[in-house]
């Protein structure tokens, strides 16, 4: 690791800790987990409550609906949790991250560090490592905590190993999404275009991929894998390698843009 990258990582860790972004990330995950868990465990009693209040009320249809929306089965509840993380957590992260690096570059914050041998690639890579790493680890931990809570309150149908694999895969999903976002924000002229692309892909592609036989090979299948609480681990290597490959191509493009040309 270069000296420039090391000091930038240290700087970005301080940024995450001191600007309240860690609290935002953790709070968001806690909020999503709390919401799903509370709706599943507590609000599933709503039909019964309604029945006692409104005599003759058809509670069966409502109960079915609640079960469908908030299933009291560990794997299905985790699917719901991971989908919410994939959609909302990603959305907030993308909004938070999309203008950060271009903002620093345009404000001239990089001018002094660059004079001392810190390269734009050091600054970009450290953001990916710190923000992607912290978000990814938080999601992995959040997933496992949710799993343990779900095992306490719901019908158990998922092994710990399966949950651990899904947690790690979802962590990598978030790491990849953050990295895509940061790379695109520096590659494209308008960072918002990158943000919209990432959000569109994350929200739409996992569902679209299901309709095609080659969907399991798409990079977004890592999301589909977690959304399905799948245990078919053979689905993982190809999308994983594809994600790494695409990111590597983008990294080379960025390196070309920022090492050979002046910004």
């Amino acid at each position, binding site marked *: 690791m270069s000296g*420039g990258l090391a000091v930038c990582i240290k700087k970005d860790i301080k940024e995450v800790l001191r600007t309240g972004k860690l609290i935002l990330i953790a709070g968001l995950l806690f909020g999503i987990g709390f919401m799903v868990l509370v709706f599943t465990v507590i609000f599933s009693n709503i039909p019964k409550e309604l029945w006692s209040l409104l005599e003759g009320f058809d509670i069966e249809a409502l109960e079915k609906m609640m079960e469908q929306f908030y299933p009291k089965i560990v794997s299905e509840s985790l699917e719901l949790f991971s989908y919410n993380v994939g959609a909302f957590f990603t959305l907030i992260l993308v909004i938070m991250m999309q203008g950060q690096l271009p903002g620093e570059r345009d404000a001239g914050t990089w001018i002094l560090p660059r004079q001392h041998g810190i390269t734009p690639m050091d600054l970009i890579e450290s953001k990916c490592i710190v923000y992607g790493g912290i978000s990814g680890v938080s999601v992995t931990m959040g997933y496992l905590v949710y799993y343990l809570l779900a095992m306490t309150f719901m019908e158990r149908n998922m092994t710990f190993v399966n949950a651990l694999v899904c947690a790690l895969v979802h962590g990598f999903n978030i790491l990849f999404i953050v990295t895509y976002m940061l790379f695109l924000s520096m590659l494209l002229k308008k960072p918002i275009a990158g943000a919209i692309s990432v959000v569109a892909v994350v929200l739409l592609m996992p569902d679209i991929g299901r309709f095609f036989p080659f969907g399991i090979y798409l990079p977004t299948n890592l999301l589909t894998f977690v959304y399905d609480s799948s245990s078919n681990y053979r689905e993982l290597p190809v999308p994983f390698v594809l994600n790494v490959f695409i990111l590597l191509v983008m990294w080379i493009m960025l390196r070309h843009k920022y090492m050979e040309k*002046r910004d």
Partner: protein
Amino acid sequence: MISIRHIKKSYDGKAVLKDVSFDITPGSIYGLIGINGAGKTTLMNIMTGLSEADSGECEFTDGEKRLKVGYLPDLVSFYDYLNTDEYLDLLLMDKDPAKRDELLSMVSLSKGIKIGSMSRGMRQRLGIAAVLAGDPDVLLLDEPTSALDPAGRADVREIMLNLKSKGKTMILSTHVLADMDSICDRAGFLHNGVIVQEVDVQQNKNTVMGFSVRFETMPDMSMFADCGDCVKVTEECVAEFHLDESDLIKSQQKILGALSRMNVGIESIRTTTPDLEQMFKEVIKA
């Protein structure tokens, strides 16, 4: 010698720098004077390598080796969540805490001050320390005092003079001409994409242009009729006498002779030197 030769730069077909050339003696302070939008920052960016010129070259050598250049931009931006010492550690890549402390003391800042809470003057001082962290031979300072209060400006001026005494060469751009007068050795007027005039600021200070005389009561100005149009009443009881550049001694004798013949008391006489601001205004008008 630091030599800027025939720099040209256009943006979207509009020429910002048409043909900029000037030389700077190592160890001196050179002031780049121009109105907003004259191209000072563009020229600084080219000199520092952040932007490329369409043509021309910048040579920073002392005859044998290439001189190291440090640049402090106009609106310097920091990582506000870091402290002063952490920021310098970042630039020094955590390798030289002794140098970090030395730099902080040079700009009169202490450790542990959060950058986000610092005044503009303090930020500017930190900026100078940050540039010096790379131990440059030449410092390019873009508007280093423009946004500062008088105390902040005085601090920065003092730091610059201190650096000059240590042999650093500085090129600074500003439109605060009082700063140029007090610290620069030479200055160049950048206008319409070229250096239209260069001034030896130190020599300028020693050049007597005339006298400013404050009388006890306003005298009869017809006494100075033979001085021609060299007399101007600038305010009540104050007259300015401009020397004729073609014959300074004769013109001086004429004025002093007329003053000695007056029977009005004189409160004060002071010599006037060429005014950089006035010179700049005339250049722009021309």
